[in-house]
């Protein structure tokens, strides 16, 4: 009798711990929203829109002197949101192409020694801390781009709005793509490897060559998993802060695609990087509310992406594939 009671007590204790975690996460969502609400409610939906220089608005909050003609809460986040969108989308597209090819290579074509090399290589790329990626970006790649790819004429052409110095959209995108490639390779090749071998062999037996078999059978079957991997990688790219704070140029500027190639060399600053760079000002109430509002946007995006990833994987269950 006594042991049964102990057992129940253990179950309750473990359950209580799990519930505590749930409460903690709930509390996080609620407090971040409550704290950021002042910023949202003052600006309304224009919070998400364009309007003026966002860096100036943040600086005004830091010095606790409102911009002339505006309330201290005046904030238009569009350049930051645009920076986030552009870096994330470009990096994910780049990484999707690279990692699909790499995953096909890894599961189908790589000879055994090559496969044994790639396994640790992917682990390594995944394990490098983001600050190290950032350091390489800011000290090696950005100066190289600055001196070799950006001509003086190009600098002069946009000189009246921004300075180009190599810490820019292109650098940020390429490094971000390298950072999210490992997760995508891992997830996509896991999905490819769990396509039932008989489907694959059936196609080969019909005389289809191996490349077409992979494209027509394996990739098509694994499509939901590829979408799920993309969504997950998007979430990671969205949340990346330190590396982007280091290499993206750190300027709240909405890079303009109409500038052609120059667009790639314009500085941006995504939402997460903005939080890091303004974290010193969290003691100033107005700035703090704005930063928590940014955090709330990130939190909602992360939750939506996590849900989308789950939903995208559902069709695979039909085939009984676990990926």
């Amino acid at each position, binding site marked *: 009798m006594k*042991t049964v009671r102990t*057992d129940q007590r253990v*179950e309750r204790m*473990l*359950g209580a*711990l*799990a*519930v505590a975690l*749930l409460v903690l996460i709930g509390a*996080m969502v609620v407090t*971040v929203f409550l*704290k950021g609400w002042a910023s949202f409610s003052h600006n309304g939906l224009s919070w998400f829109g364009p309007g003026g220089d966002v860096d100036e608005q943040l600086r005004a909050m830091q010095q606790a002197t409102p911009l002339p003609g505006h309330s201290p809460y005046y904030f238009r986040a569009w350049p930051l949101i645009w920076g986030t969108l552009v870096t994330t989308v470009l990096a994910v597209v780049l990484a999707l192409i690279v990692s699909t*090819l*790499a995953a*096909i*290579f*890894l599961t189908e*074509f790589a000879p055994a020694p090559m*496969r044994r090399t*790639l*396994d640790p290589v*992917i682990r*390594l*790329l*995944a*394990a*490098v*801390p*983001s600050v*190290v990626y950032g*350091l*390489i970006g800011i*000290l090696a790649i950005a100066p190289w781009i600055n001196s070799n790819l950006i001509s003086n004429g190009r600098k002069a052409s946009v000189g009246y709005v921004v300075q180009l110095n190599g810490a820019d959209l292109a650098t940020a995108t390429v490094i971000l793509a390298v*950072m999210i490639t*490992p997760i995508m390779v*891992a997830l996509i*090749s*896991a999905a490819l*490897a*769990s396509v039932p071998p008989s489907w694959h062999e059936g196609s080969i037996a019909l005389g289809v*060559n191996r*490349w077409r078999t992979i*494209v027509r059978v394996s990739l098509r079957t694994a499509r939901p998993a590829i979408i799920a*991997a993309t969504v997950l990688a998007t979430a*990671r790219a969205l*949340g*990346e*802060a330190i590396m982007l*704070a*280091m290499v993206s140029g*750190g300027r709240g500027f909405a890079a303009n695609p109409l500038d052609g190639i120059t667009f790639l060399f314009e500085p941006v600053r995504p939402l*997460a990087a903005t*939080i890091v760079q303004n*974290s010193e000002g*969290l003691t100033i109430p107005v700035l703090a509310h704005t930063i928590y509002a940014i*955090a709330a946007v*990130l939190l909602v995006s*992360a*939750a939506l992406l*996590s849900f989308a990833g789950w939903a995208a994987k559902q069709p695979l269950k039909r085939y009984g594939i676990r990926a």
Partner: protein
Amino acid sequence: MAAAEGTELRPLAPGPGVPVVRPRRQRTSSWPLIDRIGYGLCWATGLALCAIAIAIVLYMLVKGIGYLKPSLFVESPAPAVKQDEAGGFFDPIIGTFILTGLGILIAAPVGVAIAAWLSEYARPRALARAVESAIEMIGGVPSVVLAIFGLLVFSQGVLGFLSQRAANGAVYGRSFFAAGVIMAVLALPLIVGSVREGLAQVPDHMREAAYALGKTRASCIRHVLLPAIRPNVASGIVLGMGRIIGDTAIVTILIGVTLQNEAVGNVPIIGNLRGTGSTLTSYVYTNSPAGEGGAPQKAYAAAFVLLMIVLLLNAIVTRLSSDTKPLGRAAFAGRLRMIGRSLPWTQ
């Protein structure tokens, strides 16, 4: 195909139990051009990934070894304009150890307990599903968001004993304690995931045998299941450590920007934990051109040490999770799934 290759007749399919032998080398000469291009691109990306990895390691090796001096490991960082006088990274290394230790000390028991509850009890089901998605959500939440949430929590007056109070009673909210707790949250999904994977692999007959011998569920978990999945627990912990060591955002926001570790009060260990300081990641960040220090040589040296620590942990995980058998298709898929779930870099 078979008829064209040899004169002897081959059976159409190998008999049951006979492994299918695929040709060692691909023959692509008969493929259409576009397929051959695709095949070539696959090889190119595979080699390019290897090249990137080698380039990163070599670059850090060259820069790191060039600027690394033994004295860097024993000197504290000092504020200086010239890089030669800026001291070493003794404090950041200690900070990294303290923070990782504290984070794992909290995350490991909590993670194992939650995983055990999710896999072995999970009643009521709705609650278990909710906890599962909460853990999944932590995995996706940017760590900056976790960090500023932590700052909000730890600057509450009640929790003042975990950091320091200003003269006017305001709580600073930044300390090793605060960062350690939030780091534990960050590492939790990795530990829970790894332990659950292990528990799912334990065959049911082991549980049934334990119950048949009159063991309760709790005792079965403690004395049968946990010892059986010790490698999974270990690899979860090491993955969590990798994540904690590599994270920068939580450190810069929750420990602050002072490079030296500064204790609060006179109690030796508690005082250090209540104080602020730095870790290797925040040291690299502060000394890079992005921070204020502008001492790239120190940043390179510290980043090299950081990379070596992370690679060492990585090797340990591989060792723990590797079977000596060559990678078969199924084992390979399982392994990849594990890497995918656990990516330690996510800042």
